[in-house]
Structures are given as C-alpha cells and as structure tokens.
C-alpha cells in the first residue's frame, strides 16, 4: 500500500501547488493509481534507492528523480 500512500500525498500536494517527484518501484501499481509522472527504479520492494549502504547510488537516484520532473 506504500505506493497508494505516496500517491495520495502526491495528489493533494500537487493540488496545493507543491511539485512532487514520485519514485516508483512497482510501475504497474503506480499506473493503476493514475499518478501522472513518476521516476521508475529497477529495484525490489524495500530498496527504493537500490542497495543499502551504496551512498553514491542512493544520491544519484535522488538526483535523477528530482531532475526527472523537469523533462
């Protein structure tokens, strides 16, 4: 249900004028939720930013997710 919680926060933030960058782990659910823009990651549930302790990869995923909304 994590994607739905994130999706609902996204919906009301966007409607309040706050831009959102949404990370998606399971795109099939994200699409079902009709979240209009999301940054898809190839990782499994529990690891939204990839392998734990890989600081640089975690940082890059954050960077890419934020830059994605400008595309």
């Amino acid at each position, binding site marked *: *249900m*994590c*994607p*739905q*919680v*994130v*999706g*609902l*926060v*996204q*919906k*009301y*933030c*966007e*409607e*309040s*004028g*706050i*831009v*959102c*960058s*949404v*990370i*998606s*782990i*399971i795109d*099939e*659910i994200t699409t*079902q*939720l*009709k*979240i*209009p823009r999301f940054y898809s990651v190839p990782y*499994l*549930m*529990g*690891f*939204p*930013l990839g*392998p*734990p*302790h890989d*600081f640089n990869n*975690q*940082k890059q995923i*954050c*960077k890419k*997710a*934020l*830059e994605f*909304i*400008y595309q």
Partner: protein
Amino acid sequence: MFDAFNVNKLKHISIKDKTGLSVYPWRNCKPKKSAKITKPLSDSKIAIISSAGLYIKDIQPKFDAKVKGGDYSFREIPKSIKINSLGDSHRSLTFDHSGLISNPETGMPIPQLIELKNDGIIKEVNHRHVSLMGSILAPGRLIKKSIPKIIEILINDEVDIVLLIPV
C-alpha cells in the same frame, strides 16, 4: 485492472496477498490540477516524504501495527537527525526490511540530499521531513487528518519540491 499475479516484482508474495492486491479498490491519485514548476532545481528547497514507517528510536512512538485500516499518523524527521537513530516500524511483511534496518537512508536519504545541496544541484534541504507508514488499507483518515497537516508543514516551510519515496 491491476493483476498482481502478472507482476515480476510481486512474485515473492503469497497467493493470498496477490489476490488481495488484485481485488483492492485502488484510489485514483491523479491530481485535479498539477502544480507548476516555477524554479530551476538549483533554486529549489526539497523535503522528503517517505512511507517507510521510520521513527526516531527512544523519542517517537513506533507506528502502531494494530490500528485498523492502518496507522495514518506521521512523524517529523529533522534534517539534523543522526540517521542511525531511525528505526523501522513498517508493519508489512511483503518486503525485505534488511535495508531499512541496517541503513535507514534507504527510505530517508537526508545525507544524500545534503550532498546534492553541497554540489549545487539543489538550493536547500528543508529542516524537517515526513515519515508515514505505507501499509494503510483504509486511507480516509490519512486524507482527512494527516495529509492536510503535512501540506501545512510544507507550505509553512516554503518547500518547492517534495521527493516521495515508497518502500
């Protein structure tokens, strides 16, 4: 219609859970109107909202796994937090918790955002972030009680972009 039986990343969960996800009445999360991007990223203040169920050990209560429909409360996580003082209290058994437990940055990457700020990629990391517990089957109270308070925080803090992280 969503079919959890055909999703590779859900192969590991039980037939009961797959069935539950397939028949669940997923909400429509499409905003009636999307926010406009008015600033470059390098001029933007960023906050994290994570559904990883993280809380500050010994200071904040864990998310309550016994709340019917799911614990809709939230925790504020200060930017200055020592990341290892965060604990995992997400109630879901459908994912591997080892990453969150050994490295809470997995769900709350505050140090990573601080480095993006130091690199000039973003302007500012907000002084506080929000932790929710994503396992909420009945989201009505989340929508009516918690989300308005979260939005008030973001508006008061003049946050430009929210990075939303599920687990």
